């Protein structure tokens, strides 16, 4: 049954199967980099602080960055070898640890908790926290914080986000096709940790092989089901997913747990399974490399690998190309080839060089309002923002904006709506903090 009960949405690159055709059938290959530079700020909270020094030898999985603050996340070495440099935070660049790969693939001693079905549920959360898990769907929310349920709230359902609604990306798709068991184990672990009765793997219907694989893995597991969703962007947005799967809305300004639901990316779920059953911290992830490269492929890449090294392996890029870390709708651009693959980087998509078109005046066609998944009126918000009435923009909901980019995508006048809302939200948040 296809259910898609979320508002608005668009179909980018619908004529070209969302750009996923080149890579969706390619099995994942392991990539071995020469060196990595692991940043300390791959998650939503305060950057972690490095605890190793240049000249030290490290093994894979060794703790190299300690969590700082309530939303902090541990950082681990993704290759074994010599620490060549520990850079401090400077000029907007985060602190990072650079490691030269000795290709020995030596792991630290691992401490698994046990099988996901029979281990102590209380031990799951500490294992996740120790493993340095943060959201691998892009937002980077610390997973162990997500697992802390506030007093009085109950988690009824754990939803695994297998939608992968962004264009070009096939990492989650290949994960579900090749390792459905591992993903399922992560779901079971999360369900037990949350004491949730139901677990749902939600997958868009443009991935029939993934659906089949996950259904097979879910056979016999009580409370677990696989739900098919209509393919539409941003089906994989947390709020839209909850609306479509559970039929509920997350109250404004609150978290999904306040609606009795927790959402996890399938990649994060697989990492949870590793943390619990194998004691493995998060050190690598699947990345889709596609676009204007000679050899598009899905690669399993150690965290901290430079984008340049990955692109060279795939055939190199032309000078002044545009390299986007993520899908076309929300992915940010890499400034240069030294940019690292982080815990949340789902893909590396290469475009040819080209200026974004100049915005022309708004013609009030209202297409932006028709596609907004949150029910906002972007052209009105933009009007307030441009006339410096941030308070009015806040009143009509700019803080509810999920920055999905549907409005900018549809705008016939090519207005840069999503970036403006991003800036406005930043200004409003800064003002709120001052008070």
């Amino acid at each position, binding site marked *: 049954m296809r259910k898609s009960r979320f*508002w608005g949405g*668009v179909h*980018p*690159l619908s004529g070209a199967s969302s750009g996923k055709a080149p890579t969706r059938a390619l099995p994942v290959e392991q990539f071995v980099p020469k060196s990595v530079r692991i940043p300390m700020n791959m998650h939503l909270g305060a950057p972690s602080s490095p605890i190793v020094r240049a000249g030290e030898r490290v093994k894979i999985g060794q703790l190299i960055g300690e969590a700082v603050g309530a939303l902090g996340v541990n950082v681990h070495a993704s290759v074994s070898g010599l620490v060549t440099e520990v850079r401090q935070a400077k000029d907007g660049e985060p602190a990072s640890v650079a490691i030269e790969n000795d290709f020995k693939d030596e792991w630290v001693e691992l401490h698994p908790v046990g099988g996901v079905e029979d281990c102590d549920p209380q031990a799951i959360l500490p294992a996740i926290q120790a493993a340095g898990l943060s959201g691998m769907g892009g937002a980077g929310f610390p997973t162990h914080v997500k697992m802390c349920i506030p007093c009085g709230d109950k988690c009824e359902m754990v939803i695994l986000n297998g939608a992968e609604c962004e264009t070009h990306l096939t990492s989650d798709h290949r994960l579900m096709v090749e390792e459905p068991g591992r993903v399922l184990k992560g779901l079971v672990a999360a369900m037990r940790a949350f004491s949730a009765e139901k677990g749902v793997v939600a997958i868009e219907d443009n991935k029939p092989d993934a659906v089949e694989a996950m259904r097979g893995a879910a056979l016999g597991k009580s409370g677990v089901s696989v739900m098919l969703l209509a393919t539409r962007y941003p089906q994989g947005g947390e*709020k839209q997913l909850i*609306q479509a799967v559970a039929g509920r*809305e*997350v109250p*404004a*300004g*609150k978290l999904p747990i306040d609606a009795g639901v927790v959402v996890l990316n399938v990649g994060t779920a697989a990492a949870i399974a590793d943390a619990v059953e194998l004691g493995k911290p998060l050190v690598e992830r699947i990345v889709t490399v596609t676009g204007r490269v000679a050899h598009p492929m899905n690669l399993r890449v150690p965290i901290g690998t430079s984008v340049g090294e990955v692109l060279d392996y795939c055939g190199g*890029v032309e000078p*002044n190309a*545009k*390299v*986007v870390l993520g899908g*076309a*709708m929300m*992915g940010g*651009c*890499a*400034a*240069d*080839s030294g940019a690292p693959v982080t815990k949340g980087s789902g893909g590396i*998509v290469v*475009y040819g*060089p080209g*200026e974004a*078109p100049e915005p*022309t*005046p*708004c*013609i*009030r*066609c*209202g*297409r932006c*309002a*028709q596609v907004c*998944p*949150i*029910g906002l*009126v972007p052209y009105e918000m933009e009007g307030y923002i441009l006339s410096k009435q941030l308070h009015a923009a*806040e*009143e*009509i*909901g700019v*803080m*509810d904006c999920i920055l999905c*980019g549907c409005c*900018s*995508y*549809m*705008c*016939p*006048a*090519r207005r*840069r709506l*999503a*970036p403006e809302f991003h800036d406005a939200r930043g200004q409003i948040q800064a003002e709120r903090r001052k008070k």
Partner: protein
Amino acid sequence: MKFFVSNPPHVLSPVTTRRLMLNVVLALVPAAAMGVYNFGLPALLVLLASSAAAVLTELLWQACTHKPLRVDDLSALVTGLLLGLTLPPSAPLWMAAAGAAFAILVVKQFFGGIGCNFMNPALAARAMLLISWPAAMSGYVSPGADAVSSATPLAQNFGWLDLFMGKIPGSIGEVSKLMILAGLVWLLATSTISIRIPLSMLAGACLTGWALGANPLGEVMSGGLLFAAVFMATDYVTSPRPGPGQWLYGLGCGALTILMRHFGSYPEGVTFAILTMNALVPLIDHAIRPRIYGHKRRERHA
């Protein structure tokens, strides 16, 4: 190696402002062609005069006020063509040009340019011409070689086929309902407009006409109602946000048109009906807002 950097989204929908305007121009071609076929050279000249004057006025204004030249987004052309199609074929060319210049200069540019006008420029210009030179604007010419002035067709009786095909006196673009419907089909097929406003406007007109004891179909087929429902009331800037507000707007336009036809002093009511509703659009948009995800209906403020 440095990479090129820009803001997301990195893929954009193929629909641009110019494409939307072009769709409207193409939708107007059947009505314009039929008008020229029916009324001959004078009609063609009127259309050319109004279109050229509109584009030229916008070009001159943007050049003189040092703004970027945007005539290539075709919005001025659309305004000029729309105005020309609502004029009688006997209108003097200088009048058509003056109307087009008024539409672009006063109604559109003086209020802030494209996207900022609070009234439909072509319609407001038609209203201006109507009250400035009422005699010239009411001179309806029968189609064919004879330039015989007659009373407005609303005051006469015609066969249904003639009303539909357009072999009646009237303005250049308003007479052939068939061609207007062809334009409507094109606009709907290209997703340029939605069916809400044309449908609700016709429904409002029919209901009001029936309530007043007139023949609803007759009301729809005569005068500029169909043309205005498809091309004038659906102007993006002066119609409400897509949604329930558009149904209300259309109903209002249709009802007001019939009321003005029957109780007003002008034979044609659609011009002032739509202009009145244009003024009410900000109110409609303010009152009818979509519900924001995560908020209840009543409390909408952060």
